[in-house]
Every structure is written in structure tokens, then in C-alpha cells.
């Protein structure tokens, strides 16, 4: 019995990923990535927020509970936040949320907080691509298949 | 001579049932007892005191989709309801069967609630008489009893040798076709005795206690946790809301408790029952006055004692009933 090539099996599963991008850095980085034609996974939906600090845990938890396979928050590098403290607070919140999610069975890679500045178009597409690959490897979100 | 089932025969009979019916029975869930569909007979608890929640959710589920509407040609068409497979609710005590009977009145009186009715018609009730009474039990004070078969298709009365079998309806008998039931000369074990609670005549005097400050003081400690309504075998208030999904709308009905903060709040924000005391009074008045008046029947309480066990601040319906009677007689004397 020919074992299906894991690559081929995986390509069928297209994870649905949400990326909250802060307006000042990550979103600008996304634009730059698009303008400079960096290759980007198509199954990542970007939502622009004014600051990474604007993303409440309820949004992340609701997305995962409704079957999304992964959620990312992309903010400015610490110290570069347009509102000076937004990303510091997000960093603590995201750390605890990631720990809580992994404690109840959501693999840590499904929720990622990354720093992308406005000038890092390449990093944006690299970060998003890396996340998409990791999430694809994890398979569908087990919370989702109970609907 | 009485129809009789030894313990092994009972298990044999239950195994047979499992092939044909979905069997819902009391099972151990972490360190509490709940009614759940069972896969093997061994899971069934045959000697439990009282379950955390009553089996009312077999007929009035914690939440159910009443309709699924689909958009067809600019109109919302309701899809036919999924079929309900025949099932057996096994091991409920007489007080829980009494609770179901109390819910039958509002739900089945015309225009009947189709969703409740379909489940009722698809389910056979096989009860288990109580061999022990907990201090909170007072079924005998509200027209029930530890061995009361009146709202059941079949009643099993546990004895040291096995189970006395009382088949009361055709639907109950249908469960035993082709199954040999022994006969035994045995008399019913003495039923456990429950502590009496002064519920008799409470409907007549309830009105006099309405404006008493007792309700506000009683509600001081109430934290409105909704448990009394959720664990009660005959509380049936519900909420209905829509779920908007892709091209599909689900109209969902779920449990709701009269103790919840927004229970009577209107869209504009006006709430005719804002105070804690008024909300708590509504619970006991619906049980002791409104339900008996609306349906000319007995009080809406089965004496199972779950609300006494569940209440985190020990608001005890037995004490409320005695206080209401005391106030009632005081008012009567004064009049």
C-alpha cells in the first residue's frame, strides 16, 4: 500500500489563519511585502488594528473556538510602538494567553505574536509563511471539527 | 405473586434494550451523577441517591435548534426536523417523573410544543423507586412518593433479592415482549420516609405573603446563580435566539432562569421586576400560586430537594414554604 506522500496529503488541508496587523508597522510591512511581490500564503486573512494592544483575548479565543486553525498578532518591535506601550502590554497578554490555550489543548504554534516593522516586507512574508507551514503541519484545529 | 426481575435478569434485559433503543440512564460523571446515553450496561448506576441535574433535558434540552432556515428564492424555508430515534429513559426516580408530568401540562396543552412532544412520544420512562430518602427529600409533601408509579411506564422497586416490576402502560409492556419475567411471592419493601414540608394549602395563602419584607431579606444573600432553576425537574422557562450562519439561520431555544438579571428587562431598558427580592419571589410564586392557578393542578414542585442541595447560600424551599404558611396564618388571624 503506497503511503500517501505527506506533502501531498498536507496540501489538501488549507488552514484558515487570521492575522491581526497593527496599522503602523505590521500592516505597512504587509503592504511593502505585497508591493515587492513577496510570495504569501493565500489562506491568511489580515485584519488591520490600530495597535497590537487593541486585540482582546476574546477575539483570539472566539476565532479558535469557531474553527480557525491559527491566529497571529503582528505588532511593532518593542520600543517602536506608535502608542509607546501597546506592544509591551500585548506581549504579556499574548504570553499568558498562549500558555492558557496550550493548557486546554490548543498547540502553542496556533497562536503567535511576532514583531514586524514597517520596513520589513521580507520579514512579514517570511513570518507569515513560517506560521502557515507550522499550522499546516499541525493539521485542523481540533476545536473546529466538533461543529 | 408479583412480576419480578433478578439483578442479572435486569442487566440482561437492559443489554437487550441497548440493541434496539437509545438508553439514557444515571451514570457517574467525575464525582457527580448525570443522566446520559449509555454505551454499556455496566455504566448504569442502580443505587444512586439523586442526580446533579434532573433528566428534564431529555425532553427540554439545555439548548436545541428549533428550526434551520435556508434561503431559497428570497425566502427562508424551514428544513424538516431531524427524526427522533425511539429511546428509553431508565433509572429516574418518581420525583423526576413527577417533574416531567408537571412540564407536560404547559408543553403539551394545545397548541402543543412539537419539539417537546416528539421527544415525549419517542421515549419510554422506566423508573427506579427510592430505597433511601435524603434529608432534603419531601416528595410525599407535594403529592408524590418514593414508590409512586403514577407518571411512569414501568416502575422497578429494588429489594435485596432483585426488582419488583410494575408495568403500567402498553408502551412499558412493549419493552418486555419476548422477555420472560419471573413471578415471586414478595411484598414491597417499606418505602423510605421523607421529612414533611408544609406545602398543603399554600396556594390559598400565598397571595397574603406577596408584599412581605420577608422576600427582600431572603434575597439579600441570593447571588442569582440560576442553579435553582437549572437543577429543578419542573422549571421550564426558556430563551429563543437566532444564529446567523452562511446562508443558514438556526433558531435556538435554551434554558433560562427567572433569577437571571435581564429576564424581564425590555428592549428599551425598562425592567418591571428590578429588585432581587421580586425576582426570588417570582420563583416561589410561580411554583406555589401561578402554576396551580393557571393549570388548576398541584404545586409546581416535586420535592426532589435539588435546589436545597445546589443553592450556594442555602435558600431552602422547605423553610420558604414554612415561612409562607406562618405569614399566611398570621394574616388570616389578623383579618
Amino acid at each position, binding site marked *: 500500500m503506497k503511503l500517501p506522500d505527506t506533502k501531498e496529503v498536507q496540501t489538501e488541508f488549507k488552514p484558515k489563519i487570521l492575522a491581526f496587523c497593527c496599522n503602523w508597522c505590521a500592516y505597512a510591512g504587509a503592504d511593502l511585502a505585497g508591493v515587492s511581490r513577496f510570495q504569501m500564503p493565500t489562506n491568511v486573512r489580515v485584519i488591520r488594528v490600530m495597535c497590537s494592544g487593541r486585540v482582546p483575548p476574546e477575539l483570539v479565543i472566539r476565532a479558535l473556538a469557531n474553527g480557525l486553525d491559527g491566529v497571529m498578532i503582528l505588532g511593532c518591535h518593542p520600543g517602536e510602538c506608535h502608542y509607546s506601550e501597546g506592544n509591551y502590554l500585548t506581549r504579556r497578554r499574548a504570553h499568558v494567553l498562549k500558555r492558557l490555550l496550550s493548557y486546554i489543548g490548543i498547540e502553542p504554534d496556533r497562536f503567535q505574536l511576532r514583531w514586524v516593522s514597517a520596513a520589513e516586507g521580507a520579514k512579514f512574508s517570511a513570518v507569515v509563511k513560517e506560521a502557515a507551514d507550522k499550522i499546516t503541519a499541525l493539521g485542523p484545529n481540533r476545536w473546529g471539527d466538533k461543529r | 405473586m408479583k412480576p419480578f426481575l433478578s439483578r442479572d435478569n435486569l442487566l440482561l434485559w437492559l443489554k437487550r434494550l441497548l440493541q434496539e433503543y437509545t438508553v439514557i440512564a444515571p451514570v457517574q460523571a467525575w464525582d457527580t451523577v448525570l443522566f446520559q446515553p449509555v454505551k454499556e450496561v455496566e455504566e448504569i448506576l442502580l443505587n444512586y441517591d439523586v442526580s446533579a441535574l434532573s433528566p428534564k433535558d431529555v425532553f427540554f434540552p439545555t439548548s436545541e435548534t428549533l428550526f434551520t432556515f435556508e434561503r431559497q428564492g*428570497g425566502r427562508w424555508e424551514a428544513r424538516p426536523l431531524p427524526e427522533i430515534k425511539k429511546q428509553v429513559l431508565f433509572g429516574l426516580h418518581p420525583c423526576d417523573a413527577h417533574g416531567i408530568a408537571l412540564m407536560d401540562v404547559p408543553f403539551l396543552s394545545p397548541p402543543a*410544543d*412539537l419539539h417537546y412532544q416528539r421527544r415525549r412520544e419517542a421515549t419510554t420512562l422506566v423508573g427506579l423507586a427510592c430505597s433511601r430518602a435524603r434529608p432534603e427529600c419531601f416528595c410525599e409533601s407535594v403529592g408524590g412518593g418514593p414508590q409512586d408509579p403514577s407518571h411512569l411506564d414501568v416502575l422497578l422497586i429494588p429489594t435485596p433479592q432483585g426488582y419488583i416490576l410494575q408495568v403500567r402502560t402498553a408502551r412499558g409492556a412493549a419493552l418486555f415482549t419476548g422477555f420472560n419475567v419471573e413471578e415471586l411471592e414478595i411484598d414491597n419493601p417499606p418505602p423510605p420516609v421523607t421529612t414533611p414540608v408544609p406545602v398543603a394549602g399554600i396556594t390559598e395563602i400565598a397571595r397574603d405573603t*406577596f408584599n412581605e419584607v420577608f422576600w427582600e431579606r431572603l434575597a439579600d444573600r441570593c447571588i442569582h446563580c440560576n442553579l435553582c432553576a437549572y437543577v429543578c425537574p419542573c422549571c421550564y422557562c426558556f430563551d429563543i435566539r437566532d444564529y*446567523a450562519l452562511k446562508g443558514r439561520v438556526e433558531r435556538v431555544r435554551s434554558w433560562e432562569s427567572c433569577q437571571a438579571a435581564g*429576564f424581564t428587562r425590555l428592549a428599551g431598558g425598562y425592567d418591571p421586576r428590578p429588585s432581587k427580592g*421580586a425576582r426570588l419571589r417570582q420563583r416561589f410564586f410561580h411554583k406555589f400560586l*401561578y402554576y396551580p392557578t393557571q393549570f388548576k393542578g398541584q404545586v409546581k414542585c416535586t420535592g426532589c430537594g435539588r435546589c436545597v442541595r445546589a443553592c450556594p447560600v442555602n435558600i431552602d424551599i422547605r423553610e420558604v414554604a414554612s415561612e409562607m404558611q406562618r405569614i399566611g396564618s398570621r394574616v388570616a388571624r389578623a383579618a
Partner: protein
Amino acid sequence: MLPDSPFLPLPARIQEARDLTPDVKLFRVEIEDPRARENFRHRPGQFAFLSAFGMGESPFTFASYPSPDGVLEFAIRRVGTVSSALHELEPGEAVGIRGPFGNSFPLEEYRGKNIIIIGGGIGLAPLRPVIQAVLSHREEYGELLVIYGARTPADLVFAHEFSSWGEAPRTRVELTVDRGNGDWQGRVALVPTVIKELKPSPENTITITCGPPIMIRFVLAELKALDFAPMQIVTTLESKMKCGLGKCARCNIGEKYVCQDGPVFSFSEISRFLEQG
């Protein structure tokens, strides 16, 4: 098989949605199936549940006397989730309707009597069917006095019909607002003060009141001061409802269920209510 549950709404369509005030729209709703439309007979004072699919359903009183073409009218203020969802719908869109529910104004008993309609804000909508009933059988009733107030002139609903009501024989329309504005020439006063000013006589008269609870309380005081007997003071009460069928037991005021024993009550009944809503 289609579920014949009492909770299943009849498919219907919004024929027209007209702004009466900044936050109130008049919806003309038509039931799709002609046969269902035929035997959907409602009486003034009754209500129905309107479904905004995807948001939910809410009870609304009929705002019109039954018309031959079977089109039903509802005046809905945008105040909650379902009413806001209905306000978003365009004419032609599908809604659901369930009913008619509740008792109705006993118009036969009012024959030959003078009728006083006292409305506050959106409260005029449930009373409009009574006005239309009286005007279409004018000779069967005595004097018709409509006392209607709203917060501001822009909040007066059915303003386009006041003149036609006023011109009908033996009919008077008294308008008032809590706060007037630039071009408002009419009275600026609260509805209860207008009653005190007009001093209607309780002789062979029925008063029907509907409005915010605070207004009903003060109107009741004024009418009692004018020696109106409780039997002569009728109102229609509002309560949070989910079924309309006397099943879900949540719309009760004391032992009365607003969805079945009401929503129309006379004050002789209300005064015996346990719970003063």
C-alpha cells in the same frame, strides 16, 4: 414533512417600510401564502411575533385595523436587536410572522360610548387600530377624543393622519409635545397635564391608554381625580415574551400572563394584580 410547530413563523414579505419618525418605521407586511393570509384575522389590541431571520423574533402590536387586502401594519421603534435588524431590511425582503396572540379591545362593549384615546410616543401605534375601527363604524360610537403626546414634534407618529382623524364627525385630536421646537405652534405639556386641562367627563366614556409606564402611572392618577371608574380605564401592557402561547411563563404580571390574559387589561383587573409592574 414541514414542522407544524407553534413556533414556526409564516413566511411573509415587507411590502413597504416608511419612516414615521427618526427612529420609528411603519412596516406594511404581507403574508406570502394567500390562504394563510386569508385566515390570519387579527383584532385591535392583539400582537404578533415578527422574525428578523438571523437576529430573532419579537412581539409587536398590530398598528392597523384588519384591511381587506390582508396587509398588516406595524410601527416599530428601533430600540433593540430585532427591531434594529428589521429597520435594516428593505421592502421586498423576507420576514416571518407568528400570531395573532393575546386578547383584544372589547370594541363591542364600547358601542355607544365616548372613547378617549391617550397615547404617549410609540404608544399610539397599538391604539391606532381602535381609532380606525371607530372611524370606520363612526355612528356606532359616541365622541372620539385623541390625546397624543411625544417627546418632540419629530417624534409624533402617524402625523400624516391627524388631520383626517380631526375632520371625522364628533372627533377631536389634541396633540402635545414635551419639548417644542422652532415651528411647533401646538401645546407643549406632558400628556397627564393635558388631561387635567381638558377635564373630560367620565359620563358613558371609556379611556384607552398606552405609552411609557411612567406616563400610564400619571395618566391613571389624573383619570382617577376626574372620577373615572377603574372599569373605564383600559390599557395595554408590555412584557418580555418568548412564546406568546402561555408556555414559557415569563411574561407574567402576578398570576396574569400578558400574552394570553392580556395585553389589554382594564384597571379594575390591574388593581387586583399582585405585582404592580
